[in-house]
Every structure is written in structure tokens, then in C-alpha cells.
């Protein structure tokens, strides 16, 4: 029953009106619908097909039905006159004329003029004079019955478009049959169409549906769409609105959208700024100086071999390195400068330090920020980096690193651990945090933070430490600096439901359109 209720609510006005118009056991035909409900033929077909598929009406039987229409020729005759009418008119107005001249004047073919003349002379309306000119016959002053009948039929059909057998008397029927060809013939004046009409009746279910319609006061006259005019002139008042079938599946919408990975990174940036960090930014092309030397990585370090960073082909070197940083960093590498370190004890190469490369880690920008940092200060960057790596599911040639620093008189190992704990909980939703001694050439002590993530389980969230004085002092910073980096790629993949880092930078429009976040950062 519920099912029927919901069917009824989804009915179209064409269906509703049909149901309401029919009684039990009463035949429902197209004719009836056309006549009583002013449906056109298409609407009849729609209503029948929808209602039968819902089981509200059923086919009872079929009947043949003959109907008549004007052909194109018939339409022409109706408008311009039949050849007979036109010839009579012409001779009446212009006097006797030879047959070919008639054809010429009226723009008809000789053959048609000939056969019309034949008919008219038979009826005694026209005759041929001695000069073979056609002239009116003495007896032919009045028009014979069948000419008038033809005219009246043409006019009636032009008006109603279609007439059925029942609409015609026997004379008319006889006339039509002489002037018509069956179906789609173009030479005839009338077209005879034989059709099979299907006769429907309401089913039990249909009767029940009708009851519901009546109970609910649904008439099919409900308003389909609310128009601006209705609002303007107030005609919506007192009207009911057609109920919709709300179960129709929605269609695809193409919308403007943030890239989900960008959205992830935006949230990360929001989180970090909300924690008091200021964002830094910098060029993609860097020098060996800032990429490694300023971070106290010795120039002979194995991580600095040709096959670990991308070198710029042209130009190869920066024009200069900013002073006094160059001198101070060089001295620190060579002998520790004033930092209290013994240095790496080798001869610093000032040409090599100008070598241009694509920055290979975000710590470059942390180092550069030191030259103009506020104290106390907190800085971060989500930094595009480049690595000489084979690209696969877990390695990209260019990718983002999230890095930052905290400067202040009061920062120390314990505040570093506190900071890491905050990141673990706030950024990564960690439930447990573990700190492990680590190694980075630019920090001492160094700490790796491992976290237990609610979905991913234990993993290394990032590396961190206190910048070595060999890093900070040559860049003019006298206070301790905490440096940290977070590996957020795994969280990004998880949040987007992906498994391959390459998909973060997907070129496929459809893939990106359909991608969505699985959980919030």
C-alpha cells in the first residue's frame, strides 16, 4: 500500500487527469482523451505508456479506425482551388481558350488540365468550340453537387486536420475514396489512415490509485513550476503545486573545486599559523652555499655528490654569495670561526659554493630565514624540493617538505620535545609519541619523532634538532634555534585515499575531479 501511495505521489498531471476521468470498466481511448481532456496524440501515448508500466491501466482490446487527412496536394487544392474550380473560373472571366493556354495560364500540367476538362465536360459544364477552344457549355451555369462537396470536404479537413469515418456521410465517403490513395501517397488529395486503437481500462490498482487521488484532493491541475509571472500577479495563490518524485537519481554536476592535495596543504598551513608560525618562501634555484654549506654540511660530504642533487646547466654559478655570510660560513667549515667548533678542517671551495642547483631540501629556507629572523620567532614553509631519485610510488623527483624553526633565548631540548608533541597531536592526531636520537649534519642534538597514528599506526613523523652553532652563528644568530621537518606525505595519501605519491600530482582531470578527502587533517 505504501508503494501505491508513493506511486500516486509521483504521478504526472497527464496520468492523474486520465485516472480521474475514467470510471470502473469504462473504455479509455485516445479519442476520448483528445476530446475530453484536450490531450494531443503524443500526450495520450505518454499517459498510456506510463500508466500501463505502473499497472494502473491495462489493455482490453484493439479496434481498427480509419481517418482522413489532406495530402500536400490536397492542402494546395484547398488553398488555391482544385484544377476544375480554377479552369471554370478562368474561362468564366477570360472567355474561350485552348487547353495548352489554360495549362500555361494556371501553371498546371497539360495532363491535369486535360483530365479536369474531361470531368467538367462530362458533367456538361464545359465544351470545345470550332477553334478547339474551351468554353462554357450552355447548360453549365450552376455548379454540380460533387464539386461543392469536394470544396466543403477540403475546407473541413483544413480546419480539423483529421476526420474519421464516423464524421463522413456516404456521399462524402464515396468522394473521398475516389480522390485518395492509401497512406502517405502524395498524388491523391486525401490520405486515408488506418490505425489500430488500443482500448484501456483501469485496473484494480488504478481504481485504488484514483481513490487516493480523490482522498488527497489531487486534480492534476496543480502548478508545475512557479513562474516569475505568477509571483508578480499573485496567481499562485490558492493553487497546489505538483508533487515531485524525489527518488529520481541526481545528475552529475561539474563544479569549481580546490585540488584536494592543495586543500590538505592549506589546512596544514592554517594549523601552523594558528600555532604562531610565520610562513617563509624562496626561489627554486639555489646555491650550494645555502643548500648545504650554510647548513654546515662539508663540501666533501657523500650526500653532496653529483648524483644526489640536480645541477643547473646554464648559468652554472651565482654571481656572488652574500657577505658577511660567505666569509663566516667558509671560516666555520675550515676552522670553526668563532663558534667554538674545530670545524671540518679542510679548505673551503668558494667557487663550488656558488654552484647553482635545484634546492634539495626545505632546510635551505630555514637557513636563509635566520639572516633576518625575529627573536623570539617561529617560522615554517611548505617547500617544493627536488631530488635525484628514481620516481616510483614512494619517491618523486619533486615534492613538498614541511620545515620550520623556532628561535628564542628560552628554547632548548625540552621545548623541542614539547613542540614535537604538539605537532604530533595537533597536526597528525597522534595517540602516542616516542622520541629517538637521530642524526642530521646541521643539528645537535637531533631527535626523530615517531608517532602512533589512529589509522597508519607507528611511523616516523619527522626529524628535528637544535641547529648547531656552526649553522646559526655564521648567519648572525646567537640564540638557540630549534629546527624541525615533518613528513606529511603519508598522511596526505591516507587522507585522500591514495597509495602512490605520484597520484598527488595527478594530471588526469577526471581523477582529480572525483577525488575527495577521506578524513580531516
Amino acid at each position: 500500500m505504501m508503494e501505491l501511495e508513493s506511486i500516486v505521489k509521483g504521478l504526472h498531471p497527464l496520468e492523474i487527469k486520465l485516472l480521474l476521468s475514467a470510471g470502473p470498466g469504462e473504455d479509455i481511448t485516445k479519442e476520448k482523451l483528445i476530446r475530453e481532456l484536450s490531450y494531443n496524440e503524443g500526450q495520450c501515448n505518454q499517459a498510456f505508456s506510463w500508466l500501463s508500466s505502473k499497472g494502473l491501466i491495462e489493455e482490453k482490446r484493439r479496434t481498427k479506425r480509419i481517418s482522413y487527412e489532406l495530402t500536400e496536394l490536397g492542402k494546395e487544392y484547398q488553398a488555391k482551388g482544385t484544377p476544375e474550380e480554377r479552369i471554370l473560373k478562368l474561362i468564366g472571366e477570360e472567355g474561350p481558350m485552348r487547353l495548352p493556354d489554360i495549362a500555361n495560364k494556371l501553371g498546371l500540367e497539360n495532363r491535369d488540365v486535360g483530365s479536369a476538362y474531361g470531368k467538367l465536360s462530362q458533367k456538361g459544364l464545359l465544351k470545345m468550340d470550332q477553334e478547339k477552344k474551351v468554353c462554357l457549355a450552355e447548360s453549365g451555369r450552376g455548379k454540380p453537387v460533387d464539386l461543392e462537396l469536394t470544396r466543403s470536404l477540403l475546407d473541413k479537413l483544413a480546419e480539423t486536420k483529421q476526420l474519421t469515418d464516423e464524421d463522413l456521410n456516404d456521399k462524402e465517403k464515396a468522394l473521398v475514396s475516389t480522390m485518395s490513395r492509401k497512406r502517405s501517397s502524395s498524388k491523391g488529395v486525401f490520405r486515408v489512415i488506418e490505425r489500430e486503437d488500443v482500448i484501456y481500462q483501469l485496473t484494480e490498482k488504478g481504481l485504488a490509485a484514483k481513490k487516493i487521488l480523490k482522498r488527497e484532493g489531487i486534480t492534476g491541475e496543480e502548478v508545475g513550476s512557479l513562474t516569475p509571472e505568477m509571483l508578480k500577479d499573485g496567481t499562485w495563490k490558492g493553487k497546489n503545486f505538483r508533487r515531485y518524485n524525489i527518488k529520481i537519481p541526481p545528475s552529475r554536476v561539474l563544479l569549481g573545486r580546490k585540488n584536494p592535495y592543495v586543500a590538505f596543504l592549506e589546512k596544514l598551513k592554517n594549523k601552523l599559523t594558528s600555532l604562531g608560525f610565520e610562513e617563509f618562501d624562496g626561489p627554486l634555484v639555489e646555491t650550494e652555499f645555502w643548500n648545504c654549506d650554510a647548513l654546515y654540511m662539508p663540501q666533501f660530504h657523500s650526500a653532496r655528490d653529483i648524483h644526489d642533487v640536480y645541477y643547473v646547466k646554464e648559468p652554472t654559478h651565482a654571481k656572488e654569495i652574500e657577505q658577511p655570510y660567505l666569509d663566516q660560513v667558509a671560516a666555520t667549515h675550515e676552522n670553526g670561526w668563532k663558534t667554538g667548533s674545530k670545524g671540518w678542517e679542510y679548505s673551503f671551495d668558494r667557487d663550488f659554493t656558488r654552484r647553482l642547483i635545484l634546492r634539495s631540501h626545505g632546510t635551505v629556507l630555514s637557513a636563509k630565514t635566520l639572516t633576518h629572523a625575529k627573536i623570539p620567532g617561529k617560522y615554517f614553509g611548505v617547500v617544493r624540493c627536488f631530488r635525484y631519485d628514481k620516481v616510483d610510488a614512494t619517491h618523486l623527483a619533486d615534492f613538498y617538505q614541511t620545515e620550520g624553526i623556532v628561535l628564542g633565548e628560552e628554547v632548548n631540548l625540552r621545548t623541542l620535545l614539547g613542540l614535537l608533541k604538539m605537532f604530533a597531536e595537533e597536526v597528525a592526531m597522534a595517540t602516542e609519541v616516542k622520541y629517538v636520537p637521530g642524526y642530521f649534519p646541521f643539528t645537535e642534538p637531533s631527535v626523530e619523532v615517531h608517532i602512533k597514528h589512529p589509522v597508519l599506526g607507528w611511523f616516523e613523523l619527522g626529524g628535528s634538532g637544535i641547529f648547531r652553532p656552526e649553522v646559526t652563528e655564521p648567519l648572525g644568530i646567537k640564540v638557540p634555534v630549534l629546527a624541525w621537518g615533518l613528513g606529511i606525505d603519508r598522511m596526505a595519501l591516507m587522507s585522500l585515499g591514495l597509495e602512490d605519491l605520484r597520484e598527488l600530482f595527478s594530471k588526469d582531470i577526471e581523477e582529480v575531479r572525483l577525488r575527495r578527502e577521506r578524513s580531516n587533517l
Partner: protein
Amino acid sequence: MPKIEIEEKLFSHFLGKSLEIDELESIAVAAKAEIDDYSEEEGVIKIELNDTNRPDLWSTAGLARQLSIYMTGKKYSYGFLSTARERKEHGERRVIVDTSVNSIRPYIAAFQADGKGIDDALLRDLIQSQEKLCWNFGRKRSSIAMGVYRADLIKYPVHYKAVDPVETRFIPLGEESKMNLKEILEKHPKGIEFGWIVRNFDRYPFLTDDEGKVLSFPPIINSAELGAVKTGDSSLFIEMTGTDLNSLLLAASIAACDLADAGFRIKPVMVEYPNKTPYGGNITTPYYFQKETRLDIKYAEKLLGIEISAEEAEKLVEKMGNTVRREGNSIVVIPPPYRNDFMHPVDAIEEIVIARGMESFDPVLPEDFTVGRLSRIEKLNRSVRDIMIGMGYQEMIYNYLGSKKDFVEKMNLGGNDIIEIENPMTENFEILRNSIIPNLLESESISGNALYPHRIFELGKVAVKDEGKNYGTKTKNYLSFLISDSEAGFNEVNNHLSAVFYYLSREYSLEEGEHPSFIPGRTADVIFKGKKIGIIGEIHPAVLENWGIEMPCAAGEIDLDFLID
């Protein structure tokens, strides 16, 4: 970061006890080591060592030593080390260095190790630690290479000199007949692998004994005669050649300490240099050259955020295997001979951290108040992003590296301003992008089946050559956007551009422009404050054809840096 494989049995032998794998895992942090893999069946543990400045940990003996000191406080002392003040007895064992190696590979360190016969496991470990040391610490043998020989066949003194690569011939390890040095570089697997280190010199380093018997062609390959060490050999001659004296001396001390821990007696060798070195003309190796490091306890307290006494600090630093002397409120750290990673007092502070245990430090939040702030370009990007999304654009994000084919050829451009990579790994990543439009077109080229219309954009960085800049290059922040459908055209992109400018409260104008990637007459330069900051137009059908795109595209690209006040 180096990874080593240790055999459980040998490891337990060095450690003096056996450890469960999870016990090992928790104690390994004292050596900044992580267990990568463990095969109980084979009894092999794979370990990753994080500290690239602690090559002493890259062998079974060295790792066991550090953990044993940490766990049990066991003392290790090595009596074979010479110092600046005391030269140990070298007997007849000498290496004479010829001036000819000065500019090629100037340094050598050596010692002899006598014992009861090397066994299989130890020989494997010796070879592994030699490889790790020379590969990771010795920069793929270029700064350190090590050779091990049968000392009983050597007639001292050993001679180290540079020789003619064509005239000098010997049978290298793994071959049966004599080859000259040049042939070795061309044909021997080790010559092919490491030949780059010496190839550019006229003469190559060479080691012989006093009778002219060949030890090796360092850093490439040992001789088959003296340089084939087998199980059971009880007297070994070990040498290292290289370019950096400190690294070399450290590596020699590490190898000597490992063999001493395995029960070998280390016999020093005197190296006689033709010129003075930082440690004199003659150095008896293994040689201890490390300096003391003084740590002011106040400094440690400040950096660690804890209170600690000099006495506590002394104990903790000692617990890591160092010798420590207390002087007032400072401690002086004297590192063991196998370590050279104390450069600054902070390195001593790390010893305190590890010995005390990271978990003993209570995390506290930094209290300083600071203002969080996005960068100016990020703020602008966000405004632009909102406008683009409002107009129905899907944001994309692309890699910044690409190919010349995509960024130059397919775009019908000359590519003069494009930054090329000197050492690309593949041609897919041979340039740094100078425009985002090729990325957008690549998306179109693979997205013909995505429901149209397409409206895509990216906010990202590009870089171009720029002679006027210190770096000769300039990184820029671009907005690029592209529409594609049967009606995509100039007017629509201009409408969108004008919406962007309107909502940024900026004004722009257009001038007729020309660009090889766009249709002439349907391309415009975007002018802001009298400067060209971008371009809009309909993509040229020839470019679309290059990309295999069968739908019209129109695009725009502007440099957002100009819009920042």
C-alpha cells in the same frame, strides 16, 4: 645512510652475551641504529645506522662495542695507538711514500694484525665493514680505499708511489694473467666501477713490497698474489690510501680496534712521507689525533633545559665510552680512537642526551609569544583560488620538472629562457618549468574522456633564466588557467581574467600580442601598471595537434608577483 648485516652469532660473541631482538631494538638507540629486518632462520640482522659521522658503528665489532659500553660499562682500551707525544714500536714495518703520489692520492695508513687465523664470519664482516667504510665514509673509495693482504708474504718496507699505467703490469684479484693498469680500468669489473677516481691522472697509485711484489693498485684492486686473503690466514697487512689524512687515520683506527676486539694483536707501521704532514713527516699508524672537547655545564643546562651537575654529566658522557676529566664546572671529553665526531661542545651534550635517555626529558611548550602569518604570495594565491573556483575551475597541482619535448617542442617555442638540468636522470625530468600552460595542455591531452567543458587552473611556481639576477634565474608565482570545449575562446578567458582583476581590486588592459603557442590575432598581452605580466588567447591548433588534443582550448597565464604591492 649505511645499512649493515650482522650475524647474530658473531655479534653475540663480540657482545659477550646474546640479546633478544626487541632488547636489541630498544638498546640500539644508543648507537642511533634501527633494525630494518631480522631473519631468525639465517641468524642475520639488518641494521640501519643513522649517524654518517660514526663509521665505527658500521661493523659487527664496532656496534657491539658501543652497545656493550652503554649496557655494561665495559672499558675498552687500545695500546697500539701512537700519538704526537708517543710513537709505538713499529719494528721493520714501514711504508715509504714517494713524492709522485702527492697530487694524486697523497696519504696512506697501515698496520699489521696477527692472530690465530681469521674465520669465515669474521672475514665476511671485515669485507663488509671495509666496503661500508670506503663507500659511505670514503665517498665510494675516492677519499678512502682499503686493502687487506697476507703479511707473511710481504717483505718490508712497502713502497707507495705513482706509476705509468701502461708499463705497469700485474695479476689483479679475480684474473689469471697479467694486465696493465689501463687494461684493468677498461676490463676488470672493479676497474670499470672505480676507474673514475684515477682516470684523469697521468700516473696511477701503486703499492709494492721491498722486493717489488705487487700489493695492489689502490683504490681499484688488490693483486692476486698478496691480496687474496682466505679463512685461516693469521697475519694480515692492512692499508688505506686516500686524500684526506684525518678520515684516513680514523678509518685505520676503526679497522684496528675492530680486529683487536676480535682477538688480533695490532702491530703498528711507520709511514714515511716525503714532505711534512699536519702530524709530522713520519706517522706511526694507527695514530690517535683527536682533540679534547671542553663542555661548560651551564651551556649544557641551557641547551637541555635541565639542571645537571658536572659530576652527573661526567658519568653520562663516560657511559658512552669517552674518557672524561672534570675541571671546575666544565668537563673535558677525550673521545675514543674510533670516533672523530666531536667538533663542538654540543657534540658532548648529545652524549649526555643519549646516555640519560630521551625519555628522561619532559616536553614543555615554548612560551614565547609569536604571531602566525601566511606569506604574501600564499595570501594572494588564496584570494585568486577562491575567484577561480567560483568561476567553476578545477584546481590542479603539477610536478615542476618536465621535458624539453613538452615544454619547448610541443609548444612551438624556442626554449631560450628555460632552465635545463645538467645531470637529468631521465628526459622526463630535464628542465624546470617556465610556464604552467604545458602542464594544463598535458592534462587535456589525457582527459578527452572527461565530461566537458573543462576549466582547470594551477597556482604555482615557475622559473626562468634572468641574467640580471644574482642567481642568473628567477622564480615566479604564476596563475595559469585553461578552458576546453567546443566553444572555448578568447572572450571567455578574457571574461574570467577580468573577474580575477576586479575582485583583486586591480586593473589591467590588453594589447595585441604574439606568442608561438597561440593563434595570431586571438592573443593578447596582459598589461598591468604599464608592464606585460601575462598572456591570454586561444591555443594554436598546431600546438593542440602536437599534444593530440581534439578540442579547442583557450588559456591565460599571469605573473602574480606583479600584483603584490
